[in-house]
């Protein structure tokens, strides 16, 4: 009996190691493939197909991209960085101010304001009214603000921050209030410094969503000079994609030059570059954020 049990337990552990190991590889393999292809030579890829290790490794693809579309990519990089920096900063300010106010029990109408926010999650007017209002009344068509404003406030992130703020003891505030500080000062001088981790976590979540956003560009932007990086990549891929369906009239596909395999993958690597470099450092803050969001107050 005892031996059987020990054997069975060992088997469970072995299966655990295998399952986790395999799934982890499945998650990382495509990324590795992308990087590996981007460093391969085009001829080798055309001959042998994609492979796990770079074939006749070279930097030619990156040189080629830099010479041919360097300006375009730099411009898109600029747009993405601008949107991410400005968007994240304003989002953090807007979100944390409201989260702070709603974390205070003394605020009489806080439940009403929370309800107004929650309702937008449960029910929305849909894409078309939102689009028409944004384009006709706010003039967001082909404006860089179209990439920032609609995503500048997330109700989820606000509630996440409120949970953090609620854990600060209100007696700290009361002391400052007696000293004559108003609540904006208290927010700046006491609440924010005490919630640095929360700011970092939520800030990173906003930054990631701005960096990865291309949907707003698809909807609002026609002007090539305003294409963010992700949308630039999307355009390249979706042309390739349409042509490989074989349904595009041959005349039309003749006029579009297919970017080579290595070029596509290199642009993909350029797009996710900063994420790959920052990932090891920022990962734990995301885990914290998700866990804090999972635990209900």
């Amino acid at each position: 009996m005892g031996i059987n049990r020990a054997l069975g337990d060992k088997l469970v552990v072995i299966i655990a190691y295998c399952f986790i190991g395999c799934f982890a590889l499945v998650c990382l393999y495509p990324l590795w493939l992308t990087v590996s292809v981007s460093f391969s030579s085009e001829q080798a890829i055309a001959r042998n197909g994609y492979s796990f290790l770079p074939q006749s490794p070279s930097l030619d693809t990156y040189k080629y991209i830099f010479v041919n579309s360097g300006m375009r990519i730099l411009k898109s990089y600029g747009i993405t960085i601008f949107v991410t920096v400005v968007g994240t900063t304003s989002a953090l300010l807007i979100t944390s101010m409201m989260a702070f106010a709603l974390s205070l029990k003394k605020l009489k109408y806080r439940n009403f304001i929370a309800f107004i926010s929650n309702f937008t999650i449960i029910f929305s007017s849909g894409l078309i009214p939102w689009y028409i209002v944004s384009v006709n009344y706010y003039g967001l068509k082909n404006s860089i603000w179209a990439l920032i404003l609609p995503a500048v406030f997330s109700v989820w992130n606000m509630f996440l921050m409120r949970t953090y703020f609620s854990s600060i003891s209100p007696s700290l505030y009361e002391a400052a209030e007696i000293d004559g500080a108003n609540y904006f000062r208290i927010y700046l001088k006491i609440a924010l410094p005490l919630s640095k981790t929360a700011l970092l976590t939520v800030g990173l979540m906003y930054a990631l969503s701005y960096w990865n956003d291309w949907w707003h560009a698809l909807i609002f932007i026609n002007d090539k000079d305003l294409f963010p990086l992700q949308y630039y990549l999307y355009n390249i891929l979706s042309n390739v994609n349409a042509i490989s369906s074989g349904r595009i009239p041959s005349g039309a596909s003749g006029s579009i030059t297919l970017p080579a395999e290595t070029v596509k993958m290199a642009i993909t690597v350029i797009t996710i570059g900063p994420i790959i470099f920052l990932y090891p450092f920022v990962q734990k803050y995301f885990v914290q954020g998700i866990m804090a969001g999972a635990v209900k107050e």
Partner: protein
Amino acid sequence: MSSVSKELSDLPPKYSKGFLYEMKKNIILYLMCVPALLILILFSYIPFSGIWMAFTDFNVIDGIFGSKFVGLDNFKYFFAKNSMGWQVTYNTLFINFFSIILGIIVPVSIAIFINEIRNKTYKKISQSMMFFPYFISWVVVGAIIYGIFSTDVGVANNILGYFGVEPIRWYSEPKYWKTIIIFASVWKWSGYSSILYMAAMSNFDNSLYESAKVDGANKLQQIYYLTIPMLKPTIIVLTLLNVGRIFYGDFGMIYGIVGNNPVLIDEVTVIDIYVYQSMRTLGFSYSTAIGLFQSLMGLILITFANKTAKKINDGEGLF
């Protein structure tokens, strides 16, 4: 500050409990909510007025409220026999249903198995690897999927060729793409969701496992009789949240993967994508109507899901 509160305390008691009193007292805090509220009003509440378009035959000259009222005609057209309505609703529900099912099984298995791993480095590295897909955009996922399924150079055909199978022209065969999209969704979200389950598991009472061991329960029995039942509330809440959103397709995911490939798109068009496409071809009124149908179904389901969650979790809802 103090002079204001003194002034206010002189006021009759009835006034002091009212709206104006509260505004005066906490004006700074309310002002701090204004920017966020402004965004909500601009991008969520003002667009509500546009819902009226769903009941009209909208044209730009007459505007939203001047256009001809047509009642429910737009909705009738959506569900007419040969329209895309049923097809896109089916696609949405099909893709979401299987994503939800696999989106429970895979992350829960990950959470349970990772709990059995004692080697800290192995645990840490594999966890980081599994979480990575969450960080990349659907466009990048689309590029990766192209690398796997492209006809001439893709990995899938390479592997098939290894076994002597003829290469498949994936990008002109619609039948594979629902499956590919479901797996892509599971691939991207599993690492993320498994963290939610691990968070729940970290709160489990260890002494239960100790006494189970004393009673002679093996690991499999511990998982089956302890871990899974204790994970149930988390599973139910997360599932209900997803069921509440089952009428919403992931626009970014499907457009990022399939792009504007004319052969594949019909097979995987979900309601959101149909709204976007018909905005250009079938007009604003019709597409607003579809959007409204989607929002209403969402509202009904999320209310229902919330009620169910409250019943199961002793009065605690989803939000």
